[in-house]
């Protein structure tokens, strides 16, 4: 095989490897990192919009939680606390918190929920927390 052939072979292998890595990427993303709250249509209730992106083909459910600085749960309202998401789906959701609870709220988190039967050997649960400043 000449040099050109070797070069083509290496380029093809790198391309295929890159394609496999790209296709197989399993990622969890939540934005914004520092959400801002605004008044909602209900007096005494503040709201913010969060965006969740599921690039994990092994995860279909994400649990939303709001916590104070000591990681104690804070009451909040969303349409669903457990979001069902397809692979590569993006979901934007409104999150409502009482004004009196907002001052205690520090983190808005989303955690991947693994289905027991889907975990083979070791599974990885991911949790991303945005901070309310």
């Amino acid at each position, binding site marked *: 095989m000449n040099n050109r052939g070797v070069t083509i072979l290496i380029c093809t292998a790198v391309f295929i490897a890159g394609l496999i890595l790209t296709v197989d990427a399993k990622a969890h993303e939540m934005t914004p990192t520092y959400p801002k709250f605004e008044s909602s249509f209900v007096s005494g209730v503040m709201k913010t919009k969060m965006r969740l992106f599921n690039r994990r083909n092994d995860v279909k459910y994400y649990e939303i939680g709001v916590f104070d600085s000591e990681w104690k749960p804070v009451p909040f309202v969303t349409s669903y606390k457990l979001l069902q998401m397809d692979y590569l789906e993006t979901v934007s959701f409104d999150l409502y918190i009482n004004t009196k609870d907002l001052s205690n709220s520090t983190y808005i988190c989303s955690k991947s929920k693994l289905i027991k039967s889907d975990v*083979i*050997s*070791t599974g990885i649960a991911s949790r991303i927390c945005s901070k309310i400043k």
Partner: protein
Amino acid sequence: MKNILTAVTATLALNVMATDVPVSGNVQMRCLITTDIPGVYGNPLPQKLSTATADGGVLPVVRYDVTLADSYKAKITTPTSFSSSPALIDTVTWTGSTSVAQTSDAGMSGYEAAKVTYDATTEYDLTVAGSTWFSATLSATNGYDKAFPGGVYSAVLVAECIAK
């Protein structure tokens, strides 16, 4: 004839217009957790399960991508129980350690030395924007050196990215 062709070509050329197509993008401040390798337990001894390569296992690898420096903490908690397993009578001893496997920036070289470990959790301060790969060595040993009963064993590692 030649003149006609020239005129037609000139007319066509006048009709060809270049248009600028704007391509815009927005890089948000974010943290992305990617599960590069889920990991597999090897079974080097009847009473031991381990993800170490020397034990026939595969290390789980998690990648953190951050687009804003000094804004996030990575917390990785190794498992202390099986999420599913056959019935076990004896106490299982769990060990786990997390380390930086690869970085995208030379400025991340201090991550490993600066990590904080407590219980089964290891915390890293992500002070540099870019990608960091973390791997975890996990092992579970059955009590009194008794063999693990046959069956499927699985455990879950938790990777967290917390905004500072």
